[in-house]
């Protein structure tokens, strides 16, 4: 009897692993296409078998994408644009996370009349299609004197990221015991001190979720980068698009794929390294109603 159920058990486990690995293949396929072709010389791609492994392995496409490919008139590869993206992404992520945390704190622990409406309006702002804000935003950046600057891009990403960061922190802090806040108040602690000493130290998981979300979205943004940057502030995705979408030039697909993987590396690393905390963070609040 015991033996039978043990066998049934292993068969079931086996099927489970098979299903899970089949799905893993589905998720990995496009990455495989990209990687396999990025190690081929262009002539091999032209022969037309896109799914095959390279017959001749070469690292040239990677070298080219990183440092010698033509991006605009300069043959610089993607290298210099990393700095532009980093100097835009880091302040934008930090500021939007901090503001989101403060908003969530106020909306749950210092409630006032009409806070529900305020939260509703902030949340709805997540759903605005970005194409419609291009022209008025350009006008405003011009008025503020921020047109074409990294500072301007940071502002744009801050504004359109605030809805999500506020949502994440508000849901997280809603589950945080309000009694602790009240007790600290009785002990004479003030607004910022409570935030700094009591809420922030226990916000680790949700900070991870927010940072991942914001980092991915801002790093991958193309529309704002293409519209609001100028020669000195062009971010990575715009450079990548310049590398791959030249309309009437010869398409070096191997270089394109290598470039795409290079451009995605920061986000990929963030996902892989913090994946565990990501689920834990979601668990801790972001998915609760």
């Amino acid at each position, binding site marked *: 009897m015991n033996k039978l159920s043990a066998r049934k058990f292993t068969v079931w*486990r086996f099927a*489970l*692993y098979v299903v899970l*690995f089949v799905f*893993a293949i589905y*998720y990995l*396929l*496009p*990455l495989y*296409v990209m990687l396999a072709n990025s190690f081929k010389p262009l002539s091999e791609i032209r022969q*037309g*078998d896109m*799914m095959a492994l390279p017959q001749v392995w070469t690292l040239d496409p990677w070298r080219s994408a990183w440092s010698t490919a033509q991006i605009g008139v300069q043959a610089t590869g993607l290298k210099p644009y990393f700095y532009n993206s980093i100097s835009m992404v880091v302040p934008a992520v930090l500021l939007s996370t901090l*503001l989101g945390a*403060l*908003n969530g704190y*106020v909306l*749950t622990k210092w409630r006032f009349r009409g806070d529900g409406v305020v*939260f*509703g*309006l902030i*949340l*709805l*702002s*997540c*759903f605005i*299609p*970005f*194409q*419609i*804000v291009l022209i*008025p*935003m350009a006008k405003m950046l011009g008025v503020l004197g921020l047109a074409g600057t990294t500072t301007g891009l940071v502002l744009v990403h*801050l504004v*359109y990221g*605030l809805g999500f960061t506020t949502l994440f922190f508000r849901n997280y802090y*809603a589950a945080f015991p309000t009694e602790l806040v009240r007790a600290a108040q009785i002990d004479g602690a003030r*607004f910022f001190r409570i935030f700094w000493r009591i809420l922030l130290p226990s916000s680790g998981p949700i900070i991870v979720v927010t940072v991942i979300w914001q980092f991915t979205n801002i790093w*991958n943004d*193309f529309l704002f980068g293409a519209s609001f940057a100028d020669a000195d502030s062009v971010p990575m995705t715009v450079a*990548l698009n310049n590398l791959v*979408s030249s309309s009437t030039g010869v398409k070096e697909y191997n270089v*394109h*794929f290598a*470039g*795409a993987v290079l*451009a*995605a590396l920061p*986000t*990929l690393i963030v*996902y*892989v390294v913090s*994946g*565990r905390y990501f689920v*834990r963070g*979601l*668990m801790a609040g*972001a*998915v609760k*109603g």
Partner: protein
Amino acid sequence: MKDWFQAWLPRLVLGPGFLLILFFVYGFIIYTGYLSVSDSKMLPSYGFVGLDNYERLWQLRHWTGSLKNLAIFGALYIVICSVLGLFLAIMLDQKIRAEGLLRPIYLYPMALSFIVTGTAWKWFLDPGIGLEHTMHQWGWESFEFNWIKSRTHAIYTVVIAAVWQSSGFVMAMFLAGLRGVDPDIIRAAEIDGASRVRIYRRIIIPLMRPVFLSAFVVLAHLAIKSYDLVVALTGGGPGKATELPATFMYSYTFSRNLMGIGASSAIIMLIMIFSIIVPYLYAELRADPRR
């Protein structure tokens, strides 16, 4: 004086961010609303033309077609992502040894931009060079997979790629939800002799209700905003078979220099989004007694 400051401090902290949003989101929506009743072509212009743009919009086969496509795409995308996400989360929650390896594999597509993964998908789905070709080479001559070339089926390939991108994220949401279920409830049910399937069907999945709602909101907004995906994968073709409202709006506003019509389609899109989100939000904020 100081007490007054302390009392108002929370609102002062919230204020700047809220004002930014009021201006840069709601101000701009009102502005777009005005453009939609103006004679704007290449650049904004402020001559009032009433509802002309809306009338012309609804006469365009191109627009109604894109709405139909969105209905098919959106429904399939949301349902498949949710079901697949829940399914994978349950599978992964069976104390799987390789979870640390599998989870990032399911999750990573969300980290990539479609500018180039679109090309990879396009090749993979192309019968001449992708999956069908490979199967033929492996000896399965009758294998056929040419949806991306078909006017009636191309929209489903957009669903396949879109599900690929976001189902891992939904999986993570459900996994988090499953991990949050109180183990005592499950243990009690097991003691009562309930089978595994029954425990999931009767106890655990109903507990996932808030996750379903969150996933729905996230997916609905991704579906309506889908743009990069279509541009990279099919460019709206074959013919107009995969045109969506977001691509329509961009095309009319920026490629065709018909900004007025573009703005009116944007307003319709916003109305659609808000009519989905607002009821959810209302219910959510109402059912919130503890705060």
